[in-house]
């Protein structure tokens, strides 16, 4: 059984049959982590938790790019925005994330030039249109966005657009999964692996992890039918005691991924150890711009020193990003921390777990 056609994966009838299959198959308690923030949102938007049997808990993981961005990186972005003759270009989600003292949104209201863009090439166009300004793109995200940012750097180099640069805070998914499994406080029985990331890196990128930990893994798409189907496969692997690495998103994801995108990423970036909110420092889990493109690295153009970054007091984003706590277990949730006045990034981002709970969950 694969889900191929738009009508099928949207069809409530198909979903109902998969729900039936899950209900029949699920005997033991199982904790499944959806790694990707888009999955979290889709699960809430379609009310998927409500249709699953009580044996299944879905736990949200560290898959919201803005949420896992470390506090010192957020502070650095804000400091870049304060440099003279700089236009900061960013995807919208970052604007409202509170840093230690301010946010990009507040800086913009205070007169700093911070622009929301939908693509790195819009940022490149800004650089072309404003030759007397430095345009700094804030590179946040996983393997999904990294190739387009690499492409923008290659284009800037080809076209000699030397007033463009990137502040690179990219992160990689497989090392984070490994860090989660190595953490004794984290209990996960299976992964719903991200769809978009896997389009780029392919199923093979998880092979080493799977071989080492032998934990049920299924790559999933984002429609309700896709997610339910992945849950059904994970439950069946778990119940049978035979874990495997499966691809339930074959209409978009291949074993090898997208070679061109991977090439571009490798040309421009190299893996480095990096800090994650909630997970701490993880070996080779981040991307840095290679020396060949060093002039497009914002960290080389500006001297940024954020000093000691302060994570918001009482904020449980770290425990929430690792699935150890759910948002209602945070003291600030719905009291001091709301989407209008967010304290932590998980409440800000459209893919954040706290925002999803706040927006869609009936429980208080």
């Amino acid at each position, binding site marked *: 059984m694969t889900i191929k056609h738009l009508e099928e994966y949207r069809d*409530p009838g198909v979903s109902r049959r998969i729900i039936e299959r899950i209900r029949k198959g699920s005997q033991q308690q199982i904790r499944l982590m959806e790694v990707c923030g888009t999955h979290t949102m889709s699960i809430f938007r*379609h*009310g998927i938790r409500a249709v699953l049997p009580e044996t299944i808990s879905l736990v949200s993981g560290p898959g919201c790019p803005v949420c896992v961005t470390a506090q010192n990186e957020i502070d650095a972005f804000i400091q870049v925005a304060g440099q003279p003759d700089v236009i900061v270009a960013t995807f919208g989600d970052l604007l409202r994330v509170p840093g230690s003292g301010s946010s990009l949104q507040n800086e913009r209201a205070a007169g700093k030039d911070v622009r929301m863009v939908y693509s790195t090439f819009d940022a490149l166009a800004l650089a072309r249109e404003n030759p007397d300004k430095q345009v700094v793109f804030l590179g946040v995200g996983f393997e999904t966005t990294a190739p387009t940012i690499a492409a923008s750097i290659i284009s800037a180099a080809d076209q000699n657009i030397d007033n463009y640069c990137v502040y690179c805070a990219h992160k990689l998914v497989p090392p984070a999964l490994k860090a989660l499994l190595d953490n004794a406080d984290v209990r996960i029985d299976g992964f719903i692996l991200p769809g978009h990331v896997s389009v780029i890196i392919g199923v093979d990128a998880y092979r080493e992890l799977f071989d080492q930990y032998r934990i049920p893994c299924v790559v999933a798409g984002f429609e309700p039918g896709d997610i339910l189907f992945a849950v059904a496969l994970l439950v069946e692997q778990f119940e049978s005691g035979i874990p495997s690495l499966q691809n339930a998103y074959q209409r978009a994801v291949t074993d090898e991924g997208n070679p061109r995108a991977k090439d571009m990423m490798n040309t421009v970036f190299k893996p480095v150890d990096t800090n994650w909110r909630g997970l701490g420092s993880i070996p080779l889990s981040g991307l840095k711009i290679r020396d060949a493109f060093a002039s497009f690295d914002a960290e080389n153009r500006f001297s940024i020193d954020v000093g000691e970054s302060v994570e918001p007091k009482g904020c449980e984003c770290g425990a929430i990003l690792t699935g150890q706590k759910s948002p209602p277990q945070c003291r600030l949730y719905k009291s001091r921390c709301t989407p209008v006045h967010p304290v932590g990034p998980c409440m800000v981002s459209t893919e954040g777990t706290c925002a999803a709970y706040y927006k869609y969950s009936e429980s208080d």
Partner: protein
Amino acid sequence: MKTDKVILDHGSGGKLSHELITEVMLPVFQNPALSILHDGAIIDTEGKQLAFSTDTYVVDPIFFPGGDIGDLAINGTVNDIAMCGARPVALSVGMIIEEGFFIDDLKRIVNSMGKAARAAQVNVVTGDTKVVPRGAADKIFINSSGFGWVFPNARINSNQAKVGDRIILSGTMADHGITILSRRQGMSFDSAVQSDTAPLNHMVEQIFNRCGGVHVLRDPTRGGVATALNEIAQMSDVGIDIWQSSLPVRKEVAGICELLGFDPIYVANEGKLLAFVDPENADDILETIKSDPYGKAACFIGEVTDAHRRKVVMETAIGGRRIVDMLTGEQLPRIC
């Protein structure tokens, strides 16, 4: 983190706009007509009820498929008056124009205002024009205000939704917002969608001529259907159930929403209304709305319940449930 400056979110029509109004405006202007926070105010005059409304238009781009800032400004205020259960009578128009704006563009806008006013059968009876130096405004901003007489059998307000009411939406969601978005600088994909900007006063008049039992009317503009439903649930202290599979969205619009991560239920409309109606009259009212040229795709989308008061809950297509909250965050500035 609270801010000491106005940020774009304050104009989103969502929670922060609400906060600005309740914390900054209401304490100063406090009066019974204002405190209801309806689309327009209803004022008792001698023996007659007057509906009065104002709105300001800053849409960017000023020309877009399906309309421009001119007809948007006329239709918007006509609709706000109509949503009070009133027949619009006369409008005022105020313009702030940036130095250097083309006279031809101004003519085009004014002509389209004239056309919209004729279609709605209202007169623009007074106006004002200001020109500001280049850079002090972006091209043109328009304010329109207007008044109308409330239909004798109308008792419309956001606090009048009753348990058992059925909820009608007069057509597809998100057409206006998605049109503006796809024309916005930086978003350069072509699509066949166009704004739904339209006058709804004739539709409303037909409803009151033919049927009773209308409790709430609302045009779901900024913040979309979701925000309007939440405001009504709160003002009326009731719960609202809606059904995902009944919510009408054009296929192209749904596609763009998905691509960009927008939920059509939060995206602005400029020619649609929500009606909360007594179940006894519901079928008649739906038929009346469907007989109007702007209401052909009208349908029932949900009902009012005494469960989960002040909350909107959606039954999803796969049989799950979830909350539909008000809009938070800057989904799209300068949409109208």
